[in-house]
């Protein structure tokens, strides 16, 4: 054996390397089949970061399609409901520079809103029910409709279809249980505080 190798060093090296590559190729091929990942994990990850308002402001018919779009190289700053924090999170995930929100798609609002139907004006046309991506509006034809506030994402897709304009987007009320401390305001000097105390 050793004799054979020493007599044909190049041939034996080639054989050794060739057989190694075959073995590893087989292992990798098996792993590729055995541990195949279904679906696109990146899309799912991006989708998990999006706010799921399904508002369509990004130009896609929902959050998942936009996640797909981002995975295909679309800009990540087209989601006003998510705002800068979502952009930052996606930038982190994709390891890219975080851009600012593209105002073309809408402005970021700090105050979450919820749809509210002025019920005595509602004519029961069911148009808003069909528009709601969350199935968060209850009602039937010729019956008054109402919004399930807990399920409403504030996408305002129901506002336009309403023929009698009886839907308002109202800010979500902070309750005792949802209240949190505001972060402290940064004062540079003591007189700053006196001014805003006076104000």
């Amino acid at each position, binding site marked *: 054996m050793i004799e054979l190798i020493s007599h044909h060093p190049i041939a034996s090296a080639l054989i050794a390397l060739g057989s190694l590559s075959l073995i590893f190729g087989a292992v990798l091929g098996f792993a590729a089949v055995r541990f195949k990942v279904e679906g696109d994990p990146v899309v799912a990850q991006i*989708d998990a970061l*999006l*706010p*799921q*308002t*399904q508002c369509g402001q990004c130009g896609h018919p*929902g*959050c*998942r399609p936009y996640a797909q779009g981002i995975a295909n190289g679309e800009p990540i700053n087209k989601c006003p409901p998510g705002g800068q*924090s979502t952009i930052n999170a996606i930038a982190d995930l994709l390891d890219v520079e975080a851009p600012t929100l593209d105002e073309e798609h809408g402005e970021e609002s700090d105050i979450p809103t919820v749809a509210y139907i002025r019920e005595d004006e509602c004519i029961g046309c069911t148009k808003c029910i069909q528009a709601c*991506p*969350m*199935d*968060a509006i209850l009602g039937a034809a010729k019956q008054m409709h109402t919004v399930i506030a807990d*399920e409403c*994402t504030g996408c305002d897709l129901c506002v336009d279809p309403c023929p009698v304009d009886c839907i308002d987007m109202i800010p979500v009320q*902070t*309750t*005792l249980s*949802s*209240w*949190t*401390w*505001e*972060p*402290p305001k*940064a*004062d*540079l*000097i*003591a007189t*700053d*505080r006196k001014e805003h105390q006076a104000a």
Partner: protein
Amino acid sequence: MTQIWNIPGGIHPPENKQQSLRAPLGHIDLPAELVLPLNQHLGAPAEPVVAVGDNVKTGQVIAQPGGQFSAAVHASSSGRVIAIEDRPLPHPSGFAGPCIVIAPDGLDTWINLEPCPDYRAQEPVELVQKIRLAGIAGMGGAGFPTAIKLAPKANQPIDTLILNGTECEPYITADDRLMRDRPEQVIEGARLMAYLLGEPDRVVIGIEDNKPEAIAALRAAAEGSPIEIAGFPTKYPSGGEKQLITILTGREVPAGKIPADIGIVVQNVGTAVAAWRAVVRGEPLISRITTVVGEALDVQRNVEVRLGTPVAHVLAAHGFQAAKASRIVLGGPMMGYAIETGDVPVVKTTNCILAPSQQELPAPPPAQACIRCGMCSEACPASLLPQQLYWYARAQDHEKLEAYNLFDCIECGACAYVCPSSIPLVHYYRAAKGDIRQAQVDKEKADRSRERFAFRQERIARQEAEKEAKRAERAKAAAAAKAKMAEKKSNAGTASDPVATAIAKAKAQQASAQQSPVEQRAKLERQLSAAQGRLALAQEKLSQAETEEQAEKCRAAVKTAEIKLTDVQQKLANAKDAPKDDPVAAAIERAKAKLTMSPLEKLNATIATLSERLQKAEAKLAQAQTEQSAHVEALQLGVDKLRAKLNEAQEELASHSPTTADERAPDDAASAAIERAKAKAAARAAMSDTDKLREQVSSLEVRLDKARQKLADAEAEGSPHVDALRTAADKLANKLADTQSRLENA
């Protein structure tokens, strides 16, 4: 002597406890209104069981626990319920919340209490329920429902009960006062809780050594009992639950766990007294000892206050000078919060009302930049890194905050106290904690939204698919109907088609020929009996008919039945009388004769029939030619064929070949008709396009005439089919025009 462990960090702020300890425990008058929030504890709010206008007695339940994790609320004095509405709450948010407002009548009439001096005769479960219904919640500040802590899970045996008399926060002396004035109640409370927890191995009351009087009083009261009274060096925040556990046992509660997980229960001394009073005396929790302190007050002391008493009323009773006060703080200077209005009531967790002057507790100076000095991390009793937390809180980096164990922060304020840059660190942490919780809530909502959206998409897709399936089904049904119609039409077409008619006729003849006369007769007899039955039935109906219309109908039916009957009788008679005349029988005879014939004879007979048919066909052809019928060519072809056949037969006869003659199809009327029809079809196939068109035109003309005739008849009769007929006629006219134009083009 109890072994004492040390905790990391901690600070030594000015204690300021003497101001409120100089005077004995005081009492104040009842206010004009008692405001009792429904949520004075952690957990679900209680549910009111009284209505506005109800008269209540002191200690009466006015709100039941709203679930397992809740506590009851009681009227803290007798009077009338004047409102159940939102009032400002003692909460850092300054929000209003649901409260029951009682106007005391000043009599303070108690409900009938149910004392239970010998509680050891009862099961702990019943006693815990009693405590729950007495509305006891942690009185140290958090307001955790006590009954829950006293009913640990079966898989968590409790080996140590700690009563917390540490009271490490500056200014507050409520527990000190209690321990000094009512040491025996504290010890009794400890005994009760030990009984409820299954007599743990160790019961220890932890007190900082800055309260020597309280320690002495408790030691005296606990004389001869196994209850340990442990004094330990004063350091803020030794009174934190987890810190106290470490100090007294050397054990640490793991992050995210509760003391019960390591077999320890910690209760405030005030809570223990309240529980004891609830069980032994039957008294619900309607008052508490609160420290009223601060330089803006004339009198600084501890008072026993009825729950629901507005803070402003308490302060007024102590000579509050609003001008002197920098603010009103509920709780101590380290962990308390400023309130904006004195309307908020004293609740179960209010251990101190602090009204400091400007000099005493000035507003903190503006925050400077963090200089990374690290003093905060030295002061942190939870061994966290406050400077890092501050950094990440400002950057809103939630992941890092959680990685640096933000949620282990007890918000004691030691870090902010030592900060040389006066950074309100705890404030940042509280805000960050709120943000993270909110983010979690948002995340949950987003997940739910995703699910809902996905479900909706799925539902829409399913509905769409169902619709599509229905549409396809309908289209299929329509196609089938069309095909059927077309088949019918083509059937009708073939029926009118002379070829098909001929074939059908021939087949029918053949079929009837196969029926024996006997069978036929039987059939006719059956028909006869059926017709007789029908007639009888119709007559019966006629006799029963009530209205004229019905009678008319029945009469018609009777007539039809009669006609049919006579018809069948006739046929039967024919069949009986002249079976020989029957064409079928005749044909059979002929066929039999044929069979017996020799081939030569057969051929001769064939030739005879063929020539006969040829003559007939020729006559027909001549007639058609004179009439210029469309069938001329077809007839011509038929004649030619017959001639050819005749020739053939003659040839065969000449050759005397019996086999070929035998092979020829039996030359009866049916096959002849088939032959004829085939010939016609072949003739048509042989026609040129133009001829075909021409023929079509002529046939269409005929049909159109007929249709017009029918239409005219229908119009004359006013038939309901006029419309249908008209459209049919129009269609035919169109078709004719179309065909004519095609003919011209061709």
